[in-house]
């Protein structure tokens, strides 16, 4: 009995680790997250470290005023002025090179170039941050709204539940994608607007889930127990019911992130997404429309990345769901 105690989340993690596919998928998502965070050290035309006249600039990817307009590649590649360490991919995602338009993959441009001579690999690297931040922030917004409304509806029941449930139903009658298209048509299509619009329109799933969990859990004896101890509604909702209903919400949120990334790609593909020159995956994919007959690399790489990310997220969500569901656990 005196052995180490395994908390709930730890046991879920152990269970999750047994699912190899989910584990690999989680690793891929984390790798993508790493790429998104350190994108400017992985791709770009500015050096990571720059040594000039005895001064060390790190990280030199930052815009120093004295280097404005400097083409580092030309100045430092084989220079006597000092030296620079460049990122492994030496192209910026927005750097046009009219001498290298629509080049197929080569040793210089591993993923080829697009119709403005921009390096596709570099655009893929920078697109990771856009896709992931849209996915996570949109789901963050919808989770906050969904948990709040679902918790109130499920906990209090009665008239409050009736009103909020009708609100869910009204929201659900709108086809979300077209609603987003409509809103974006009338607003300025920045990356933040896309996140907010996706977040504001996709909370009904989480809200219904949370409501169901609250309806179930509020009748558990430990909720009565907390009440008998004198616990306030606030304490009962946040300390006793919410932590016990969170696991399925996290599963649903993981699927939600995948969904949001797909919606963003779809919007970009239709030209309503992240405005150029921001290098979103969907945007590269949409360019491919015009050259689909020969520029296969414009279709393959963004398509593959979207597919891998969304599939990984879904596999993580599925692995997580199996890990928390005792019925599906191996006996």
């Amino acid at each position, binding site marked *: *009995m*005196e052995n180490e105690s395994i908390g709930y989340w730890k046991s879920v993690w152990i269970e999750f680790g047994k699912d190899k596919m989910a584990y690999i998928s989680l690793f891929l998502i984390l790798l993508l997250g790493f790429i998104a965070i350190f994108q400017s050290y992985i791709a770009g035309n500015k050096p990571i470290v720059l040594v000039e006249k005895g001064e060390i600039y790190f990280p030199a990817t930052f815009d120093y005023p004295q280097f404005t307009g400097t083409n580092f590649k030309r100045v430092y590649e084989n220079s006597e002025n000092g030296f620079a360490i460049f990122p492994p991919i030496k192209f910026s995602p927005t750097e046009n090179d009219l001498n290298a338009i629509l080049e197929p993959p080569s040793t210089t441009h591993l993923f080829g170039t697009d119709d403005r001579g921009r390096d596709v690999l570099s655009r893929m690297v920078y697109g990771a941050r856009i896709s992931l931040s849209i996915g996570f922030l949109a789901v963050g917004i919808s989770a906050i709204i969904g948990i709040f409304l679902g918790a109130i509806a499920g906990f209090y029941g009665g008239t409050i539940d009736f009103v909020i449930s009708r609100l869910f139903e009204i929201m659900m009658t709108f086809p979300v994608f077209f609603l987003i298209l409509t809103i974006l048509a009338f607003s300025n299509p920045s990356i933040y607007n896309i996140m907010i619009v996706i977040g504001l329109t996709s909370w009904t799933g989480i809200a219904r889930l949370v409501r169901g969990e609250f309806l179930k859990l509020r009748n558990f004896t430990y909720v*009565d*127990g907390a009440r008998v*101890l*004198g616990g306030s509604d606030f304490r009962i909702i946040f300390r006793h019911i919410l*932590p016990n209903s969170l696991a399925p919400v996290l599963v649903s949120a993981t699927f939600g992130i995948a969904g949001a990334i797909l919606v963003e790609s779809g919007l970009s593909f239709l030209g309503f997404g992240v405005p150029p020159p921001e290098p979103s995956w969907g945007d590269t994919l949409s360019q491919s429309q015009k050259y689909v007959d020969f520029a296969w690399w414009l279709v393959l790489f963004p398509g593959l990345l979207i597919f891998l990310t969304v599939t990984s997220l879904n596999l993580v969500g599925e692995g997580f769901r199996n890990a928390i569901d005792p019925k599906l656990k191996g006996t």
Partner: protein
Amino acid sequence: MLPAINPENYLTADMNILEIKDLKKYFPIKSGVFSRTVNNVKAVDGVDLNIEKGTTLGLVGESGCGKSTLGKTIIKLLNPTEGQIVFDGNDITGFNTAEVRPLRKDMQMIFQNPYGSLNPRMNVESLVTEGMEIHNIHSKPERKEIAVDLLEKVGLAKYTLNKYPHEFSGGQRQRIAIARALAVKPSFIVCDEPVSALDVSVQAQIVNLLQSLQDEFDLTYLFISHDLRVVKHISDMVAVMYLGKIVEIATSEEIYENPMHPYTKILISAIPDIKKSRENRKIVISGDVPNPIDPPSGCSFHPRCPIAEDKCKISTPELADKGGNQMVACHLA
């Protein structure tokens, strides 16, 4: 065991920690578009009870008789439909949630299912200290000290503080639940079937623990159970409940040696007892507990009663004093 009760004292308020008068709890059955109340489940239908300080009142009855509802109504987890609850001299009948909250320090509850009554995401330390945290008593380190102390009193070691409910057996969980209830230093505890879900050998441990804690902390118990053996063992007074009403109250010796209500007699004869000889039974009862939505007229026990007469079908017997602290609701007793 039982202090000699002087009838005058029995009626004075300062001896009784809890007095209930004509308590009713109906659950409305709603139907139709406008949620009109079409009928009521009369779970508790006019109960009078007094519990003397420092004693245990056992409440026994079969499933559906309303004993759990009565317990929850007394502790104000449910709001009474009618009647009066006087706790420690205060009429708490109409108290709302906020008004009841400070009283929670004094009245606590232990639940039947030790698997469901502890939040699975909280470790033992936060479970036991939660009450003190809610009522803001003691500093944080003091709370932990008190928790360790209480755990020791209920028979659990200090290292259990960081463990979670699923790591314990049923009996150990019930010990945690008891420590959790005791942490706010209550004077009155409703024990709702606290040992029914436990194994026999563990049941006895918990019953003994409850008894020793009662002496140590001067606790008053309302002990609800379907098992008359356990109730008789732990209680000073025993109340027998049938279909929302108390049919008999007596001291625990009297209720076994001299049961007066036919239902009590049947209940006693139906209990298998290893110390009873095999031939010494049994009055067999027919039929099932009637539907509390539509209880029988007159005495609600009459359709199953072996000695019922015509008047039992018409008039409802009141709980009447039969002397020696025994009260019975039967025309024929």
